[in-house]
């Protein structure tokens, strides 16, 4: 049962304790850009979850099957970014075909998932943490996506209410969002050290 325990702890760890947005500053651009409304934030979160699962799994396989045995680590970044770009293209075509309304409202942010640091960041972390089982890599990828979705939805909920607040003029828009993000991070720091 050790494997199962590792998987569950790893999953909770990456969703809550080591949340990519709050502790590693990954995926800040969409986090600030698309968090205006909850439904859009949730859609974005789902898209990112899908891409990150696909990309995390694929890059892990490529890394362990092709790059490491043949000593091609130099090519790692090039390969990773190509896989991610391909996965995003797939999601974009799928959303445009089946959810045209959602596609319209995403605008430029959908292709920008390619440059979402959370995705490349997770692929690199899988390598950095020395994850050596495929199952664990998949679980961590899904967890990272869910963690991102949670973070962006919480943020969107707060920002919808913030619309009604009387914010000083010079802080409107991005500055107040960043300060709110800071306070949210402070709250999530309470989980630090819960899972080693």
């Amino acid at each position, binding site marked *: 049962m050790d494997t199962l325990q590792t998987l569950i702890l790893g999953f909770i760890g990456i969703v809550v304790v080591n949340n990519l947005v*709050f*502790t*590693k*500053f*990954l*995926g*800040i*651009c969409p986090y*600030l850009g698309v968090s205006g409304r909850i439904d859009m934030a949730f859609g974005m979160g789902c898209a990112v979850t899908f891409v990150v699962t696909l990309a995390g799994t694929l890059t892990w396989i490529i890394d362990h099957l092709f790059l490491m045995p043949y000593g091609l680590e*130099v090519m790692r*970044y*090039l390969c990773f*970014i*190509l896989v991610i*770009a391909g996965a995003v293209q797939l999601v974009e075509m799928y959303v445009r075909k089946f959810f045209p309304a959602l596609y319209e409202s995403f605008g430029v942010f959908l*292709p*920008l998932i*390619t*440059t*979402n*640091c959370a*995705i*490349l*960041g997770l692929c*690199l*972390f899988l390598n*950095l943490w020395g994850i050596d089982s495929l199952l664990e890599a998949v679980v961590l990828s899904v967890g990272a996506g869910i963690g991102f979705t949670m973070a962006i939805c919480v943020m969107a909920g707060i920002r919808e209410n913030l619309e009604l607040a009387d914010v*000083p*003029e*010079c*802080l409107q828009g*991005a*500055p*107040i*969002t*960043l*300060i709110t*993000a*800071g*306070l949210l*991070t*402070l709250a999530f*720091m309470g989980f630090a050290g819960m899972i080693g």
Partner: protein
Amino acid sequence: MSKEVSLGKTFTAGLWDNNPVLRLLLGMCPTLAVTAAVKPALTMGISVIFVLLFSNIVVSSIRHLLKPHVRILMFTLTIATAVTIADLYLKAFMPEMSASLGPFIPLIIVNCIIIGRAEACASKNGLMVSITDALGMGVGFTLTLCVLAAIREVLATGMIFEKAIPAFTDFYVPWAAMGMPVGAFITLGLMLGAVNMISKKTT
């Protein structure tokens, strides 16, 4: 941008009017992540200048050959190559710094500033303009990073460049939260607010 745009103006635009972090809100992730102290911030800034220069030069030189639908892919591959060079250099000559920056050097690949400049400037302009633009943007980014890092390092540890400040460090009580993610978000938020206020007054 027309051909007559002066090089000096292109350079200074990156420093203030179009400052990538403070005005365009690009490249937020590294900005927040590496600014716990001045040294990593400076290393990060210089790496970004190098990558920006490399990608702008390459993209500008091949801009007539690029087909619209493959251009983003070409940009990304160029950037990934430059980042690999920078990463290997840091690993070889500054192993400690490379270890402490961790994945944030490879993450320059997905830094929006670089792909943004390749798209907005280098793919439309000649070599000289692109180089100047890369330097201006890069220096603007580095300066912002250093200012943010200096504020955070002084408040978090009472030291700067890991050295004690005479007559200040002795009685200063370190404010640990500034060295953590919280400090990054709130300091940058307040900096953006201050920039908004200043730019409103001058216009």
